[in-house]
């Protein structure tokens, strides 16, 4: 897929979005929501697959079957959330969404469903009922678009529903067509964030209430705003400190906060790619898709239990020996699975040298080659994920011949040989030490002490910081302040879909300090950040009007 830049998409969608008035009726807002005439779309983010699925479940019920392949997502600066702000749709991708919209509409309005077989009790099945249709579309339109429908949006769907009813001789069919139209609209498939002139600060912009609601909901619940949150946006309460506090308290107290934090952790820790992971069956015969799926689940279960359920210190994810196992994973770890449940808590003994999330099979196997471990790949990913330090791609003319021969010596020997190349040492002296500390785990993450008959040395020296093995690496990361600052920056970037810039430096530093003051508790970090005005700050996209006056001029 070819990503499209934000501005291109913004311009393409602008005509759809800058309609001047909201539909009249039940969904009509009665408070200061963004005046479309002066509103500007400042960010566009495609819903991720989990967000799409959860939104549909929340709006229509969890029994709606979603059987489809979704467009691949793009990771930028370590986060898919950032990539989502640059993604468009391919024609094939839109076709998938369109087919899915029809299927979901059919399930929602299927006559045998009973729940929504007829949107309104009084409606006949063959006669178009305008009031009923408007009531139905206003309700679900607001939930799907995360704001009330505009008059034009409503009118176009009413026309579609009426036409469909007449042509098919079925009101339900007409409503299915209108609902399908909502489900395949960019306003649903993309999170469109709008800015409006800030009445408190002349010439400044602020995020409108509905966009704030979406930002909150997707951060804290990884789903669409619920009716209460939309009502707070509709009433304008969300624009007040007290109203924001009330909603953050409510959302933050819900068990669904775990969904939001889990989605963030999966994104930040890059817990993906397990569906396409390949291992050489002759070298790692224990590997199969069940092991891959289990490894993914293990990382998620460990993180969620540690950071959400137990609300423990974030830095302990680098040192903890507590995790969860199933039978398949236990075989890979070469430990017994003592439980009659599918999954069971497990604490690695110290002798296993497993400490930290990076010593789990998921990380170790994902960041390795199909037939061997890779200290470099593991080290690059450790820096990227936990320290927010990105490593440049190797030069095109680099000679890898001494590294790829995994049948001779140890990885350390091969890499030292490789680093004799002065063009390589700059990056490798930073990337390799953490990976070398993990060499007691092979390319699948299985324990080992020897490679090609030679004892493996897992000591490491990272610019003078010396550590041994995974436990030593974990202690190093635990004590490195970059890990917590990286997390804070990532939470911010994940929530607002852009990396914090120089202007936000003091804000981020304050958040880091508060995070430490709260005992490095991640749920607290989410709540504290969601309450700050900076979390809803607006950065006008390039080419967008800078003032309301300019916007009005642009519309003429």
């Amino acid at each position, binding site marked *: 897929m070819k990503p499209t830049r934000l501005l291109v998409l913004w311009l393409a969608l602008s005509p759809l979005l800058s309609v001047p008035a909201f539909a009249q009726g039940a969904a009509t807002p009665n408070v200061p929501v963004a005046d479309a005439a002066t509103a500007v779309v400042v960010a566009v983010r495609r819903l991720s697959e989990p967000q799409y699925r959860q939104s549909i479940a929340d709006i229509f019920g969890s029994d709606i079957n979603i059987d489809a392949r979704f467009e691949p997502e793009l990771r930028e600066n370590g986060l898919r959330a950032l990539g989502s702000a640059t993604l468009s749709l391919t024609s094939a991708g839109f076709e998938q969404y369109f087919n899915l919209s029809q299927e979901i509409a059919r399930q929602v309005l299927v006559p045998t469903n009973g729940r929504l077989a007829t949107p309104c009790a009084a409606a006949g099945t063959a006669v178009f009922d305008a009031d009923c249709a408007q009531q139905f579309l206003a309700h679900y339109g607001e939930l799907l678009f995360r704001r009330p429908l505009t008059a034009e949006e409503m009118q176009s769907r009413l026309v579609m529903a009426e036409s469909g009813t007449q042509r098919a001789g079925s009101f339900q069919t007409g409503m299915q067509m209108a609902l399908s139209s909502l489900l395949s609209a960019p306003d649903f498939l993309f999170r469109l964030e709008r800015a409006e002139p800030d009445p408190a600060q002349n010439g400044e912009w602020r995020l409108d209430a509905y966009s704030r609601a979406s930002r909150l909901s997707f951060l804290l619940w990884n789903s669409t705003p619920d009716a209460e949150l939309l009502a707070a946006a509709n009433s304008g309460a969300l624009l007040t400190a007290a109203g924001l506090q009330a909603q953050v308290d409510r959302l933050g107290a819900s068990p669904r906060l775990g969904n939001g934090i889990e989605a963030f952790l999966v994104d930040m820790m890059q817990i993906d790619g397990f569906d396409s992971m390949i*291992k050489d*069956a*002759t070298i*790692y*015969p*224990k*590997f*199969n898709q069940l092991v891959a799926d289990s490894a993914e689940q293990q990382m998620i279960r460990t993180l969620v239990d540690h950071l959400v359920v137990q609300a423990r210190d974030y830095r302990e994810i680098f040192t903890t020996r507590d995790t969860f196992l199933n*039978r*398949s994973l*236990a*075989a*890979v770890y*070469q*430990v*017994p*699975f*003592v*439980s*009659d449940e599918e999954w069971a808590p497990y604490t690695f003994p110290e002798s296993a040298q497993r400490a930290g999330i990076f010593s789990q099979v998921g990380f170790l196997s994902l960041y390795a080659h199909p037939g061997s471990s890779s200290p470099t790949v593991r080290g690059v990913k450790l820096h990227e994920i936990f320290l927010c330090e990105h490593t440049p791609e190797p030069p095109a003319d680099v000679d890898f011949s001494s590294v790829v021969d995994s049948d001779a010596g140890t990885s350390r020997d091969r890499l030292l040989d490789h680093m004799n190349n002065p063009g390589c040492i700059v990056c490798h002296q930073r990337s390799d030490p953490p990976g070398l500390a993990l060499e007691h785990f092979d390319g699948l993450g299985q324990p080992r002490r020897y490679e090609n008959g030679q004892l493996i040395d897992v000591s490491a020296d990272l610019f003078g910081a010396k550590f041994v093995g995974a436990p030593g690496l974990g202690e190093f990361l635990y004590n490195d302040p970059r890990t917590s600052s990286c997390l804070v920056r990532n939470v911010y970037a994940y929530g607002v879909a852009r990396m914090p810039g120089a202007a936000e430096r003091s804000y981020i530093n304050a958040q880091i300090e508060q995070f430490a003051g709260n005992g490095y508790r991640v749920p607290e970090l989410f709540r504290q950040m969601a309450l700050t005005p900076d979390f809803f700050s607006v950065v006008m996209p390039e080419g967008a009007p800078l003032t309301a006056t300019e916007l009005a001029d642009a519309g003429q």
Partner: protein
Amino acid sequence: MNKRPSSIKLATLLGAALVAGLSTSAQAQWHRSYVIEWNEPAMYFGGENSIEGPGTDCPQGVNPELDWVEVLVRAGYTREEAEWLRNPANPTRSPVHGQNQMAFRGKDRANIYTNPTSYPDPGLYPMTGSIAEGLNLDGNDDTGFVSPTGEPGIDNTFYQALGCWKTYRGPERLSSGALQFNDGMRNGSWTMVIVVAGEGDDPANDNNVSVGFYMSEDNMVKGGDGEISADYTFRIQPHAKYEALFPARTVDGVIESTQPVHAMLRDPGYTRDLELLQAQIRLEMRDDGTLRGYVGGYRPWLPVYEGWVNARGPVIESLTWVELPAVYYALERHADFHPAGRNEGKTHISYALRVDALPAFVVTPDASEVATEVVSWQHQAPPLPTAGPAMIGRSRIIDGIVIDPNAEHQAGPDAVILPPQ
């Protein structure tokens, strides 16, 4: 190879006492656990070039494929009837008629599967070699075979009886019988695990070792290379029948029985029950973590024959090139043991099961802890299901044949073979 009843009785009593003691054994200092990934009758292969060709074990090779028309003619059928029954194009050569009629070739057309002595011994090619795998069950070096490594006194007349039958002959893991039953086991039909526990400081040399064989309902898992993966966890499933506990010792990493016991294992064969009297083990804990060796003893031979019969006699005969009464006579001829106090002749035959096991984790039946001790779990076993007729797939086997009561033609002593002209 016969053991005198008095010494058998003493050894059995000692074994029983030791096994009883196992259930209250002291806390083990060390333990190992394994899953049996392959097991087959220990049949030394002396073939030169092929499974069917001659070798030091079977100078004439395996029993050759039979001309079943001639067999039927010898049994009293007219040539026309025999050819009719064996003609593949004949629509009545169905399992319920043509094949089933193969059963009725005894004296007065008795069913030879249920009455093998109604048929003269067709004979099996004899295993005439001097080398055999297995154990020295009676402790007598002067009787029996010599092992492939030169150890005398190997008692394995089961091999002597059936070693030249195509079903059993072949290199390790390559005889048709071994492949068939181990494929079933490895694909989930059953799982047996082994727990080894010792009380000494040195697992390789420990005078107080216990070995337990248990069933598990957890399937083995094949890796990407098609082989069974090590290190999986198996929960002991208490079984009212299949369990065996051996008092033993280790010498240089080899586990040896210290007393014979009465053992019941899951047989990798149609018999299912591998009951062994005077059972012993010799299993090597190898450097690569695997376990390999033998479980030997005297097994009742008649159930072995009945196992083949109940696998559908006519099919077994056709596929394995043998007349089943020959198996009956061979087993009877080579039987070398009977339990103390029994006078019905040699009811048991010396036998060895070759076992290959992978390192695995074994946990107690309630999955609450790793099984570190060898104890009996049979008191927790659910009752055995009521025995029904032998089954092959969904077909009931009665007297060695599948009978379809709705079939137009029925086999039997008085069956009309040829259709009306």
